[in-house]
């Protein structure tokens, strides 16, 4: 038998017995060292400045996926925590309005469209504007003329409707206006819906 082999097997047996012991001792030592170290004191001794100086923030930010970050934010929850009243209370409305270009805003408003949306009838009937109109343009003669004209127009429409019926041609109001009084591009057409009666409240020439 090779004397070296005998020596190797003996060494192997010794190693097998000593190795767990050595590991145990090492672990015990590490544990003792960690316990004896004051981490807070250690951290306080570290100067972060040189570390921060070495950090490339741009490069760091480039690596951050902001969209992914925002997706993870619960906006509803965030807004629920915002005190809107307190926020509005901090807004200086006068200062805000001072910065608004009112002329530019007015320029963008279609005044004609606004005027068309006004219910002039309701204005005349329900506001003092009506009294102003009546005072400025009223009078027995004017009222009598209004009635006379309205009744005449009502009679015109009555005749026209019956003539239309006899001729079997539907009547939808007085024709016109003449060429020069027409809006550009408009053709000579029958007028609006027939006037229902001669009273001033309904007949419209």
């Amino acid at each position: 038998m090779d004397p070296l082999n005998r020596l190797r097997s003996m060494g192997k047996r010794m190693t097998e017995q000593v190795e767990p012991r050595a590991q145990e001792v090492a672990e015990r030592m590490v544990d003792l060292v960690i316990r004896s170290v004051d981490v807070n004191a250690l951290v306080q001794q570290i100067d972060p400045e040189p570390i921060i100086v070495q950090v490339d923030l741009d490069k760091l930010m480039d690596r951050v996926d902001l969209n992914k970050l925002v997706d993870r934010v619960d906006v509803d929850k965030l807004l629920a925590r915002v005190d809107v009243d307190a926020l509005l209370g901090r807004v200086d409305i006068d200062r805000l309005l001072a910065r608004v270009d009112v002329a530019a805003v007015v320029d963008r408003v279609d005044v004609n469209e606004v005027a068309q949306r006004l219910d002039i009838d309701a204005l005349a009937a329900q506001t003092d504007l009506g009294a102003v109109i009546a005072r400025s343009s009223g009078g027995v003669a004017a009222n009598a003329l209004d009635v006379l004209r309205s009744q005449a127009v009502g009679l015109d429409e009555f005749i026209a409707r019956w003539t239309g019926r006899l001729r079997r041609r539907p009547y939808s109001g007085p024709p016109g206006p003449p060429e020069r009084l027409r809006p550009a591009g408009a053709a000579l057409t029958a007028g609006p819906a027939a006037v229902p009666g001669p009273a001033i409240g309904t007949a419209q020439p």
Partner: protein
Amino acid sequence: MTAPPVARLSFQGRFAGAASRLAAYAIDIGASTGVFVLAVAGGTFVASVIVGHSVSWSRTNIIVEIVYFLWLFIYFAYSWAASGKTFGMAMLGVRVLAADGADATARQAVVRTLALPLSFLLLGLGFVGIVLQRDRRALHDLIAGTAVIYDWDARAARLRFLARDKLPGQS
């Protein structure tokens, strides 16, 4: 009172109908004849004072008849040429224009006045066009190249009507 939707429409500028035109004509004849009668009565009185005895002018007198028709001619022709409307037309809110919508010329006013009796002389058939024609033109309109439109602002009239309720003491 709530305004019906149709009341928001205006016929201003559209061709006037028979009733409005007939009423205007009746008022014109009444007014012009009334003025003439008053003028004749005044002239008779002045002539009686000047000559010192009673002077009698009546409509049966041929000269008075001629002056009457001359007066009617001036009354209608001048009114149409000057403003497109006579007294009666102004009351009814109708107006004479050239057929294309321009103001009637003096020539058109004169021709229309001269052609007007023709519409009567044809047993009134000259007026049928007002009812049957698309642009409501009578024979004298066709001859003179004129048309009659509604000229009054019904919208303003309606506002006045609505506004009357707002006046104190009225309901």
